[in-house]
């Protein structure tokens, strides 16, 4: 039996006046999949997700949510979807549990099952301890969990999560990521991010868009292979800046050296060899390393390169 598509989009477009936020995107997400939606800021991720969640209709294109047309059956489609909007908006004065009861009523969960639905959502997001606190008094991480809890409430078969980890500290990012991973199962999860490592950690498949167009699709491994395995190392050395830059640029494996206030950023093909070779070079010249750290390569520039490549190829 072929996998059942829970989200299906063909030639989806959305224009805001003269701006084409999404321009002809097509993809499918199947039942039980966790799919990452990657793209730089302004790529059209949020617009696409809002269309899928029913916030507004597309300008053109064909959309099916759990096999239904959202233009014809908007309420049935929205019942099938739990949506986490970017920045998790909230009512600061409402308390957590009453807020989730309000959400459960709006999701038309029958009265007899409402208390259980709220309890499950609280438990799944670790919110029992703050159930009776106003949402506005919670930390950013907890407010994010409240946002996830409202999406989870009523156990919808499809979850659409827009940047669930944005603005969180690293510990909270790991918690939310674990939470998303724990949703694996019968649910279909479609979640957006602009951080490749995050998507790679959680998703089985990744869809990449840039400037409103699909630029790549595949497993995280396939994708990073296509992007070229690039790492970035930031190094600070106590030598004369020009000499240091020249010496490090000559290290085998270094593709590009960028000078920054805080040191030098080396773009490299493979990290370990480069770090060792760079260290050896610095030592040979009689300098010493003051700081050495790895930096995750910003997807945005990789996407821009991908898009540029795509445009050059066409």
């Amino acid at each position, binding site marked *: 039996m072929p996998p059942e598509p829970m989200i299906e989009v063909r030639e989806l477009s959305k224009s805001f006046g003269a701006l084409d936020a999404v321009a002809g995107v097509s993809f499918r997400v199947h039942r039980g999949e966790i799919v990452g939606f990657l793209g730089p800021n302004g790529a059209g991720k949020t617009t696409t997700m809002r269309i899928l969640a029913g916030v507004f209709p597309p300008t053109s294109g064909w959309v099916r949510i759990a096999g239904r047309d959202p233009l014809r059956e908007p309420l049935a489609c929205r019942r099938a979807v739990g949506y986490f909007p970017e920045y998790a908006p909230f009512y*600061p*004065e409402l308390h957590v549990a009453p807020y989730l009861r309000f959400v459960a*009523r709006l999701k038309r969960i029958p009265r007899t099952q409402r208390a259980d639905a709220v309890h499950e959502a609280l438990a799944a997001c670790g919110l029992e301890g703050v159930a009776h606190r106003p949402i506005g008094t919670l930390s950013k991480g907890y407010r994010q969990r409240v946002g996830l809890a409202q999406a989870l409430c009523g156990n919808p078969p499809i979850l659409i999560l827009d940047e669930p980890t944005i603005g969180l500290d690293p510990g909270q990012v790991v918690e939310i990521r674990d939470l998303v991973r724990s949703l694996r199962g019968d649910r279909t999860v479609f979640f957006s991010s602009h951080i490749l490592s995050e998507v790679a950690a959680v998703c089985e498949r990744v869809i990449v868009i840039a400037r409103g167009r699909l630029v790549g699709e595949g497993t995280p491994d396939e994708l990073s292979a296509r992007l070229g395995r690039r790492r970035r190392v930031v190094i600070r050395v106590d030598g004369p800046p020009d000499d240091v830059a020249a010496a490090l640029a000559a290290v085998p494996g270094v593709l590009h050296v960028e000078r920054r206030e805080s040191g030098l950023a080396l773009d490299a093909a493979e990290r370990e060899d480069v770090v060792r070779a760079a260290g050896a070079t610095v030592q040979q010249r009689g300098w010493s390393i003051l700081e050495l750290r790895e930096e995750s390569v910003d997807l945005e520039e990789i996407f821009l390169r991908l898009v540029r490549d795509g445009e050059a190829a066409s």
Partner: protein
Amino acid sequence: MTILAIARKELALYFGSLLFYALASVFLVLAGYFFYTNLGFFVLMGGMSLQRGLWQYQLLDLQRLLLVLIPLFTMRLFAEERKLGTLELLWTYPVRDAEIILGKFLACLLVVTVMVAATAVQPIVVATFYPVAAGPLVAGYLGLWLLLAAFIACGLFVSALTDSQLVAGAATYGVLLFFWVVTWNEAAVNEVTLHLLVPFSLFDRFYPFALGAIDTGDVSYLALFTLAFLAFTFFALDARRWRGIR
């Protein structure tokens, strides 16, 4: 019922906010002050010989007071949700726009009704030592209630147009004042224009109620005014949604 769910949330926000208690206090203190001065005036000036009764003065004062206060109740209804971004969330739940609009409208109407109903203590107190004719008073309060519904519907509509509560409040004053004073420039316009405008004046529509008369024309006008602005709210939300403005 999702309408009730929306209304309950709005009530929780009203009763949980300082603004509501501030507005209700202002209303009750001023309504009490108007009652005190009107009663004093009525007693000193010889009561029954006056052209209008005590309650006519009182109702007309309440009407002015509510014109000032209602936009402050309605300004947050949609503007706040836009500002917070929660309207986007509401749109992803299986809820119709009409249900959101009605839930908010009913919650605000209930809050204001409760507040205004508290002034019923005034005729009750007077009735303990002086006869009060219930009929005209009931007509007056019915008119006031219909007027409140019209004010709220208008404020709800304006609130759906912006994400700034201040702008929503200010613009609601503008619209309500226009419908209030539309016939005040009697000297400046000719009789034909005046005749065309009179039916649209909220002030002129309320006046007969204050005198104790329920005219079906006035009831219909206020009800239609309310329904029209609820419909405008629906179209305003729909238009903004299609254009993708949250």
